[in-house]
């Protein structure tokens, strides 16, 4: 049974971290698949810093494609890891559009500010561990995997 470590909740969408021995599990839950992906991205940011501390100063466009929705989640999170690493940015707001196997997204954020963000750790990549994308009992969409840090 996975134990939840931290939870941020509003009415329908939320993100969570779940326990993994060495790394961190990220989970997004939403009314739609796209919302679940947006929340998973927030969970990814929360591994590094407090998402609300990240100002949405710059927008970065991201696109990926995969016929398997689970691999699409891995590709989406890895695209964010790549953008964070090469632009030295953090992202705090996400807008995801999914059409079949295609994902288009906007991510808003700003350059890393050590004094304000206190980034704890850099994400190395999304793994296939505990990888799950699908609808849960209550009809909510869930998107999760373990991220190597």
């Amino acid at each position: 049974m996975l134990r939840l470590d931290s939870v941020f909740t509003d009415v329908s969408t939320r993100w969570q971290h779940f326990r993994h021995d060495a790394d961190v599990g990220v989970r997004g839950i939403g009314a739609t698949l796209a919302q679940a992906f947006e929340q998973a991205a927030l969970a990814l940011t929360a591994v590094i810093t407090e998402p609300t501390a990240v100002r949405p100063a710059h927008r970065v466009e991201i696109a990926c494609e995969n016929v398997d929705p689970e691999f699409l989640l891995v590709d989406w999170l890895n695209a964010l890891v790549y953008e964070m690493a090469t632009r030295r940015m953090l992202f705090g707001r996400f807008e995801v559009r999914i059409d079949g196997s295609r994902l288009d997204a906007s991510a808003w954020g700003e350059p890393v500010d050590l004094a304000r963000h206190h980034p704890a750790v850099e994400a190395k990549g999304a793994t296939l561990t505990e990888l799950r994308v699908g609808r849960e009992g209550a009809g909510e969409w869930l998107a999760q995997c373990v991220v190597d840090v």
Partner: protein
Amino acid sequence: MDLSGLVRKSDFEWELPPSGKMRVPGVIFASEELVRAMDQKVWQQVANVAALPGIVRASYAMPDAHWGYGFPIGGVAAFDPEDGVISAGGVGFDISCGVRCMHTGLQVAELKRRQERLADTLYRRVPAGVGSTGRIVLSDGEMHAMLTGGARWAVERGYGTREDLGRIEERGQMKGADPGAVSEQAKRRQRDQMGTLGSGNHYLEVQRVAAVHDPRIAETFALKLDDVVVSIHCGSRGLGHQIGTEFLREMAQSASAHGIELPDRELACAPIRSPLGKKYLGAMRAAINCALANRQILAQITRDAFREVFEQAELALLYDVSHNTCKLEEHAVDGRMQRLFVHRKGATRAFGPGHSELPDVLGDAGQPVLIGGSMGTASYVLAGTAAGMEHAFGSACHGAGRAMSRNEAMKHWRGRKVVDELAGQGILIRSPSMRGIAEEAPGAYKDVTAVVDAAEAAGLAKKVAKLMPLVCVKG
């Protein structure tokens, strides 16, 4: 972990007999207490690895084994070059992550007089933490040269000396690297990251020799009580992470096309002889060179920092080990020497005395095996043994392993308080992130002493010296 179903071969060796699709047994080297503390997922992961094609003899777990992705962290598995597989998950994202330990020529009493200044100087000079960059920006040509040259490339550019190379695995340069197999994205991620420490559990630590367990080998390693040494724990930075990311996905999605039935898709692998397997091997070896070059540059930055504070400091390399690799090695199997691809994921190579890979100066001592602890706790220098060559293809543990998650740690500790408490114990911490400090608090890790004691009792390696921290720069 539930012990029922495990066969106790000795107090420190436990066997999972083959069942289901396992081709070989699983073997866990650990005390009963450590095995009980392991997550049940370690069992499953050891068993899953044992089901991969071409695996030889057994799927091993070291005393610090914990739940990883695909392979357990602390996992060792060797594969036949003809019909075996190579696994990106069996190496990990931080390819060739490892530890380098250097002498300083200083004694604790001397260091204490300028400890604060040294801590500040190291922190100012060593790029550490999220978003940090090095002073080098690699051109395409230099990227290619670095990926094929490793630490040798760094030495040729003035970072360190030729004497260093003999005390690095592969003599500082991994052969068979293929920069062409490394994606442009991976290269872009690395362009300005040479000579950076990274974040998380990576660190640069100034340590004192707090105990000598084996005086004879310690003398060969030139370690004496109260000597000051410096250890660097980091890996192949963004390049390795990106290579791991790309190949993990590609191997997982193409496994069935290669006729491999994965017990779990996170065991992503490809036949060693397939184009994908060969491509990964070339890219992974390039990432090993990246890690070796990175630690070599960091070593020179550390030397410069020490000399700024202590003019007489001479930082000679003790040894440099990697604990996330897959290497082609020769091992005795059923009395016959055989070439094998040995995966070590969170496991340190621990070659026994007289191995041809080791420098002559080590004489009849085995390979130095460098085991990192956490801030405020011990690290250890071990030595490879002849018995360890038989047990798990010359492998030992790599560290303490986390006892609690990052989120749990953050709830338990405040970074500032951890720093103040450690300062009270004479350990100076420097880090850009107080949250990072809380997540890396000493109490968040298992007892490294229990791990190395088990490694020694199991015959994997021999304890030589215990190191205690004086200064720690965390990313």
